[in-house]
C-alpha cells in the first residue's frame, strides 16, 4: 500500500459561479522511502496541491477529492484537531524562502523545539538534546550557539537548513520540499539538495521534491511527475522521461534546461504563460501554446492515459528520441 494516495484532487478558488481550478483532477501516489519529483512552470498548481494535502487551503478556497489517504488515514474525513496530529509530525513541508518562512521574533532553537514539544511532548534536557542533534543532523556548524540565533542573523542557506531541521524534527514519513533551493545561490543549492537526499535515504522518508527546473532533480528522483495548469500531464521514471518525453510540455521543459541554468524564466520552446483564472482553454490546457496542437486539441480535454495526457503523444513505443 502506498504511503500517500491522491485521487481526483480538485482545489478551486474564485466564486462558486466562476470557479478557478488551481488543481484539477489530480492523481498522485508515493511509497514509503520513495523520492518523487514534481515539475512544472510557476503557476502550475504544485504548491497548491501540497498546501491542500497539508490542510492549509483557507476559505474561500475549496478542496475536494475522491481519495486523500495518507498512511491509512483519509485526511479529508479527519477532524481538524486529528489532522493536525499528522500534519507537522508525519507529513512536513519546507518552503521556498526560508528567511520569510521562519518567524523573525523567535530564535532558531525556539522554532525547532516547538514541534518537538507539541508533537513529541519532549521537555527539559531531552528537548535540548534533540534540538542540538537536529541542528547537527542538518550540518549547521557551531550548532550549540546557533540555537540562540535569530533567523535574520543567519544566511539563506543556514536558514534553509534550519527549516529542514524543523521539518524532520518528528521523523516524518513524508517530507515535501517546495522549491527549497530556488532562492539560493547555485553552490548552496547543491549542498541543500545533497543534504535532503542523504536525510531521505538515512531516515527512509518519502520525499516529494518540487521544482520548476528539471535539471535540479534529474539525478535524485526515481520518478517524475510533470504538472501543468493544475493537472498531471506526464508521469514516468526519470530515465524514460529524459530519454523519451511523451508530452509536448515535458519536451519543452527538457529543452529549457540549458536556459534555466542561465537564469531564464520563460520557456523559449513554449511561448506564453500558464493559463490563469480567465483564460483556461476549453480543450487541452496546453493547446494555445502547443506546437503539435490540432483541431481536436481545442475541443475536448484529453485524459491521463498510460501516464500521459495528450492526444498525440511523442515518442510512441519503439521510436527513439524526438526532435
Amino acid at each position, binding site marked *: 500500500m502506498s504511503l500517500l494516495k491522491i485521487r481526483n484532487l480538485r482545489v478551486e478558488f474564485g466564486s462558486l459561479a*466562476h470557479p478557478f481550478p488551481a488543481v484539477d483532477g489530480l492523481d498522485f501516489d508515493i511509497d514509503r522511502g520513495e523520492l518523487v519529483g514534481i515539475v512544472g512552470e510557476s503557476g502550475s498548481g504544485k504548491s497548491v496541491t501540497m498546501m491542500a494535502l497539508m490542510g492549509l487551503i483557507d476559505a474561500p478556497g475549496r478542496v475536494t477529492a475522491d481519495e486523500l489517504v495518507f498512511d491509512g488515514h483519509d485526511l479529508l474525513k479527519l477532524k481538524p484537531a486529528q489532522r493536525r496530529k499528522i500534519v507537522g509530525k508525519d507529513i512536513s513541508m519546507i518552503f521556498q524562502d526560508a528567511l520569510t518562512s521562519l518567524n523573525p521574533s523567535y530564535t532558531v532553537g525556539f522554532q525547532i523545539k516547538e514541534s518537538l514539544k507539541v508533537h513529541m511532548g519532549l521537555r527539559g534536557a531531552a528537548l535540548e538534546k534533540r534540538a542540538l542533534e537536529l541542528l547537527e543532523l542538518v550540518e549547521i556548524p557551531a550548532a550549540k550557539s546557533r540555537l540562540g540565533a535569530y533567523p535574520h542573523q543567519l544566511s539563506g542557506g543556514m536558514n534553509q537548513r534550519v527549516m529542514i531541521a524543523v521539518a524532520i524534527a518528528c521523523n516524518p514519513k513524508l517530507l515535501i520540499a517546495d522549491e527549497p533551493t530556488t532562492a539560493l545561490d547555485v553552490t548552496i543549492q547543491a549542498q541543500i539538495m545533497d543534504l535532503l537526499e542523504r536525510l531521505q535515504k538515512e531516515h527512509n522518508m518519502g520525499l516529494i521534491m518540487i521544482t520548476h527546473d528539471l535539471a535540479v532533480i534529474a539525478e535524485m528522483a526515481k520518478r517524475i511527475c510533470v504538472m501543468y495548469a493544475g493537472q498531471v500531464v506526464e508521469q514516468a521514471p526519470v530515465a524514460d522521461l529524459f530519454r523519451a518525453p511523451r508530452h509536448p510540455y515535458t519536451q519543452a521543459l527538457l529543452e529549457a534546461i540549458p536556459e534555466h541554468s542561465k537564469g531564464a524564466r520563460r520557456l523559449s520552446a513554449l511561448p506564453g504563460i500558464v493559463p490563469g483564472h*480567465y483564460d*483556461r*482553454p*476549453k480543450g487541452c490546457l496546453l493547446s494555445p501554446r502547443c506546437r503539435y496542437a490540432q483541431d481536436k486539441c481545442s475541443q475536448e480535454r484529453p485524459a491521463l492515459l498510460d501516464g500521459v495526457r495528450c492526444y498525440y503523444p511523442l515518442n510512441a513505443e519503439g521510436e527513439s528520441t524526438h526532435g
Partner: protein
Amino acid sequence: MTTQVQIADVVPSYPSPLKEFWQSFSHNKGAVVALFIFLSVIFCGVFAGWIAPHDPVEQYRDHMLTPPSWAGGGMSTYLLGTDELGRDILSRLIHGARISLFIAFMSVLMSLIPGMVLGLLAAFFPKGAGTVIMRVMDVMLALPGILLAICIITILGPGLINTMIAIAIGTLPSYTRLTRAAAMAEINKEYVTASRVAGAGALRLMFLTVLPNCMAPIIVNATLGFSSAILETAALGFLGLGVQPPTPEWGTMLSAARDYIERAPWVVTMPGVTILVTVLSINLMGDGLRDALDPKLKRAA
C-alpha cells in the same frame, strides 16, 4: 466557462488612468457616499449666501433658543432652531462650512507646498540642508498638534488667518517627512539617473522628474490633513483661541453653547454633528483614495 473564453478572446484595452482610478474608487461604496456628502458640504460653503435662509449673524431677539422645527415649540423658519442670541443655527452652520473649508484648504496648501519643497531639498541634499531641515522637523514634531498651534497663537494672537498659519505650521513636518521618504525611494531609480545623465538640472530633477512620482502618498496625506485641519480649527475655536465670535465657525459656536447643555441641547448637538459628518466623509474618502491610488494596497485591505 463560456464567459471565461470570451474574456480571453477580447483584445485587452487599457482604460485611461482616470477611468481606472474611478473604477477602483467607486468599488468602495462608503467612499462614494462620502464623496457626495463632502461635495454637498462644499456646495453649501461656496453658495452659503444663497442657500442660507437667514443672515448668520442677525439676532432675532424675540426667538432666542427656539428648538428645531420638528420639536415642540419649534418654528419652521428656523429649521434647526436658534441659539442663545436668536441667530438661526442652520444659516450659521452653512456659513460655517465656508469658513471651515476655507481655513482647512488654505492651511493644507500653506503646509503642503513648503513641505514638498523642504522634503525634496532634504532628499536631494541629505548632507547639509537635509540634516538641518529634518532636525527642525523633529523639534516641531515634539510639540503635538494642538500644542504647537497654541504656541503659535500665543505669539500671533487668535483669529482666522492666525488659525490657518498655526495649523499649517503644525502639519508641515508630516509633509516634509513624507515627501523626503518618497523622494529618497525614487531618487536612485534608473529614470532619475537617466535624466540626470541627460543633463537635467537639480530643479528640473526635483520638480519635474521626481515629484510627480511621489504624489500618491502626498495626496492621501493631504486628504487626512484636510479633515484634521477642520477638527483643529474647531478645537481652537472651541478653546476661544481660533476664529472669534460672532463669525459663525463651528467650534466657536460650540464654545458658546456649553452653557445651554441642559436648556437647549440642539445648540450643542447641531454643530458637532456637522463637524463629525464632514470629517467622517473626508476620512472615508481618504480611505477610498488610498486604496485607489496605491496599487500595492489595492484590494488587499
